[in-house]
């Protein structure tokens, strides 16, 4: 019936509009709640809704991600630009989050695409395409494995970077602490005298 097609199209059009206003944020800390995101983004946009992505397929410990629907498209653009040009940090330092424009396939409960044509084809042993299809299947499986390997590789890289940063941070912290101590308890004057340097207290 004509109306139902129109309905489907309208629904999809609404959905597309929603997609345009939504941004996808990842590299989020799992500790972050929707409240936090709302507060964080309040600087540049007002948040209509937050939907966290549940991980069903990646068998590693990955950062959280969320689809954040904003008020309108321009806000979405502003947010994405901001987070691309500056490191935007949500809940925990120093790793910034990443934001990009949402795409329809990110929404797990998206409506059916009105133009979708599903051609179903059964292939059995003996059909000329049987081997070909099986090879394609194997290819798909191999590609998936490759993808997972890359994911694993990335995650390990991240861990290393985190460790490095933590180490250097600890060192810096110790250094600054020490400096502070010395200034506080006056030892710095002794040191200055020892090294024949002039200290100007201002």
């Amino acid at each position: 019936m004509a109306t139902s097609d129109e309905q489907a199209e309208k629904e999809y059009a609404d959905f597309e509009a929603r997609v345009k206003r939504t941004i996808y944020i990842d590299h989020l800390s799992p500790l972050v709640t929707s409240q936090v995101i709302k507060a964080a983004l309040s600087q540049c946009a007002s948040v209509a809704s937050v939907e966290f992505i549940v991980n069903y397929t990646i068998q590693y410990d990955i950062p959280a991600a969320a689809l954040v629907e904003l008020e309108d498209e321009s806000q979405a653009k502003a947010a994405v630009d901001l987070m691309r040009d500056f490191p935007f940090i949500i809940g925990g330092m120093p790793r910034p989050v990443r934001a990009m424009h949402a795409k329809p396939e990110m929404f797990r409960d998206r409506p059916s695409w009105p133009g979708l044509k599903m051609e179903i084809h059964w292939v059995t042993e003996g059909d000329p395409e049987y081997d070909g299809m099986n090879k394609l299947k194997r290819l798909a499986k191999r590609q998936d494995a490759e993808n997972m390997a890359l994911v694993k590789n990335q995650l390990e890289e991240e861990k290393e970077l985190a460790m490095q940063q933590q180490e250097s941070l600890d060192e810096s912290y110790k250094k600054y602490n020490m400096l502070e101590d010395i200034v506080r308890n006056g030892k710095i004057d002794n040191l200055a005298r020892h090294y024949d340097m002039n200290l100007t207290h201002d």
Partner: protein
Amino acid sequence: MDGSSKNIQFSWGKRRSKGGAKMDTQFYGSFTFDNVKYSLYDCVYLFKHGEPEPYIGKILKIWEQNQAKKVKILWFFSPDEIRSYLSGPVMEKEIFLASGDGTGLADINPLEALAGKCTVVCISKDERNRQPTPREQAVADYIFYRFFDVGNCTLSDQVPEKIGGLEVNDLLNPKDEQVTSYTCQDVQGVDQKLGVGLVAPLPQSAVKMDNENLVTAVIPPMSDAIPLPPAVKEDDKAKAAAVSLPPAVKEDGKAKVAVAPLPPAVKEGVPKPTQNIPKRTEKDYSEKMPSKKLKLSQDLTSQSMAPVPDVKVRPGPLEPLTRQAVDRSKWFTPLPWDEELLAADEGGRLVYIQNLDIQFGASDIVELIHEALQQSCIARPINHPTYDDPNNGKAYAVFRSKKAADAAILKINSGLVVGGRPLYCSKGLLKVPKSSGALVGHLTITNQRMGQRQREEQKKAVSTSHCSQPNTIEYDLALDWMLVREKQTRKFSILHKKHKEERKSFAAKIGK
């Protein structure tokens, strides 16, 4: 999860006699439960906790005693239940009425165990049976003409004189043509109550039914009036579906909303567990529930009140009822989906499908399964936008029974190709590690000498967010991360592009 029985609408209908040893039993001729009107000799569905398929029965008696509302149900058997006693062909939608004496003939159940009405038409050529019109037969949910004697376990098409102490006349077709009471009045204005959920899917599903195989089976002139599949696909609420039907119905002039192509051959692949007849007695009937809510409700004996689940949980049991590709994906809100996954995995009903086109939405996948396998299921795409390869769409599909899931896996793996993509699938939930709690890369400062106030501030720091300023150490570190990330993104996009090219050239090579 009890105490919600107050929420389900109920009112008594026609009163009949009083009885019982202490004259404390009131018999009734009809009642309205959850906005559906039930009368004596109506055919109804009942669910058993844990069973995917409902039982079908006929109401023989209705009464209330000591605040408890009961119904006596005369059972119908499905072909699977009496498979070992069956020989010869079984008609489409055929069920068998219990007869004779013994266990398995009839049971007393709490009224709250009823899960809706259905139409069962008797097509026996016996003179006592009013012959149904072809249309009646076509639109009915089920038909019967044979009787299964529970005493000596024999099948017969001879109409017995009495069943369960009642004249058989009452049990055959009602004298006037059944104008099914699933009229729009019942259905409209009810939000998510059982009535709509139950009734609407019947017409909705009928309408959603894909034309090909099944409409051919449907003779009626109604087929023109039926708003065909596209109409119902998009409806978010069952209510809308019901509303879309009235126009069709009006054209026809009859209030017969129980439209057309119904249960038919969908029975394949979803066999009910064959049971011994004795099993039926002393059963606890409660709403079958995949979701947690009803699992919490405890066992009942047939004497006590069935814990009535929350109304909003009701859509669950309706799945098997419809047996059609009702757009159940629309009934799900995020929470029940996750619970559904766990429950389905436990029950062996969860299938993990891969290599789909990533454009397919949940309803597309449901439709795909339906078209390809004639099975109904709930499905959702589950790709992770950051990490999953967009060339390979993944989804979880939950089937109604373990057998259905197993059958589906076999069939899909044997060679289902959609749009040039061969699908493959496996059973069960992927093991995904639980999140470790903090993000890799969120650094902490180990510090013994923190003042109390500082410690508190640090705790609160999780909820502070800001744009990093260039004059801090944090800024440098953050930049490191951005660099790493940019590299990552590029690596992924290169890989995914490569995959895409590989697939294209491969497909070209095999000449598809």
